């Protein structure tokens, strides 16, 4: 199932990745290839197999509601490209 250019532009916008004209065509080809791989899975006969959201057998893994120490704020901020005081600073988000 080949992806067209508009779909690639849409996906890039969702992921907030800027791509140029030539890249659109390149990614269209590569993404189509990935989707074709999934088409291979569709060839399996899954009649009578219950759908699952998870491949593992684990169930009901929970922890008690016990608080523990958090990171010191300076450690938390240590890899931030930009900070202001103890805040993370990011580019303006204007659409909300």
């Amino acid at each position, binding site marked *: 199932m080949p992806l067209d250019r508009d779909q690639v532009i*849409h996906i890039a*916008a*969702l*992921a*907030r990745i800027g791509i140029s004209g030539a890249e659109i065509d390149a990614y269209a080809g590569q993404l189509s290839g990935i989707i074709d791989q999934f088409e291979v899975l569709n060839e399996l006969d899954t009649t009578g197999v219950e759908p699952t*959201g*998870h491949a*593992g057998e*684990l*169930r*009901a*893994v*929970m*922890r*008690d*509601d*016990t*608080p*523990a120490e*958090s*990171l010191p*704020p300076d450690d*938390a*901020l240590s890899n931030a490209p930009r900070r*202001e*005081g*103890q*805040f*993370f*600073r*990011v*580019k*303006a*988000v*204007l*659409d*909300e």
Partner: protein
Amino acid sequence: MEYETVIGLEVHVQLQTQSKMFCACRADYQSAPVNSRVCPVCLGLPGALPVINARAVEYTIMTGLALNCSIPRLTKFDRKNYPYPDLMKGYQISQYDLPIAVDGRLEIGDGGEGRVIGVRRVHLEEDVAKMQHFPDGRGGNGGYSLVDVNRSGVPLMEVVSEPDMRSAEEARAYLMTLHSLLQYLGVSTGNMQDGSFRCDANISLRPAGSDEFGTRTEIKNMNSFRSVFQALNFEVGRQRRVLEDGGRVVQETRGWLEGRAVTVSQRSKEEAHDYRYFPEPDLPPLDIAPDWVEQIRGRLPELAPERCARFCRDYGLPLYDARLLTASKAMADYYERAAGMHPAAGTARESHAKQVSNWMLSDLARLLNLENRDIADSPVSPEHLVELIGLVDAGTVSVTLGKTVLEEVYASGAAPRRIVEERGYTQISDTAAVEPSVREALDANPRAVADYLGGKDSAAKFLVGQVMKLTRGQAKPDLVNQLVTGALERRKNEGNGAADSANQSKGAGAD
């Protein structure tokens, strides 16, 4: 054309757990220093793995049970993808198709005529980080935003109603009932101002009698019961005008602007709603054991309807009082403490219980409402109130003076008995102590006296008021009444000459 309003509500509730939804950071972010309640999990650092907080699941099951939901055996979490800096991971862990609780109902309104609103689902997710926006920048840097991650990962329960409400009034009643229920359950503070209880509404109009839904809008940014009510009423009017002008309602998100009292379009790009949900690979599905559910059911506290019935039964209260007193848990708790205390000597238990209700629902409620203060923060404690009722019952202060004492207890937090003593507020029930004031009032108001002698009985009331004023409200009203009437009658019998001359002056002192 007649239109019918259709409203459904989505309520987000922060759960009162000790730790966050998927990590052990403390959940009490409200007063914490910026970015001090964060760890690799809630910061979304690569490789960090979430683990489900059992207490949050328990609270959600408890809420579901109180809303008459069924609790399916299998539930799971899903990823809701959207790129916004309040989500550190680029997705929110939420629940899509298998929520913890489904198919419930909530009865709103007063008992007999209550309406039942369907509850579609109750699910669990994580709250997001708090942003501050500086669109125009500061110091010539261009626009930017600041992020405090403390709130990110706080357990957030979402209660989604069916589109069963037919007016803004019903929507408000549903919200208030749900809010009260959550406080009874003790699962959330329910504080709307600080965002612990947030509401979005879907609203549409359709021709009366139609079964199909009209195009809806989603209303956001309402942070009080009052703003929900106003915003929905505004939106009903707006949609009606659009339809009556032959237009079509646009499906969109609209924000309520409290200051301007209007909703405005917040339309963002279509793809913003392309959430691409998929099962959360980092969390195995949850198998909710039926005996766990039954354990939780067994721990459900007494809720408002049962408590209301018990108040009628145990305290002999009228249904009206019991409903008002049990509308909030804090109010009901306050009442039980006060009503359960030993009444003043000679007062029957039921009479005491009714007096507590009267004081709470009238004078104390008025004082609290003036300041928009919750009864849980009342400066007048239940002990104070019972002490005051005892002073009134014993005749130490009159009811009128009691109201003044209540105001002073409210303002100072001091005990009623101390206020009465310090201010010399004791009721004068001694004839000899009141008589000088009666003479003074009669002498100072010859016109009123003349009016009475001329046959205008109501003039006596005015003079009684004057005596009460002179005694600073401390004289026993029935005693004053008796003394004033006695004094007037004596004057009437003493000499008609004086009365006649005074009569001609056409006094109007009683007015």
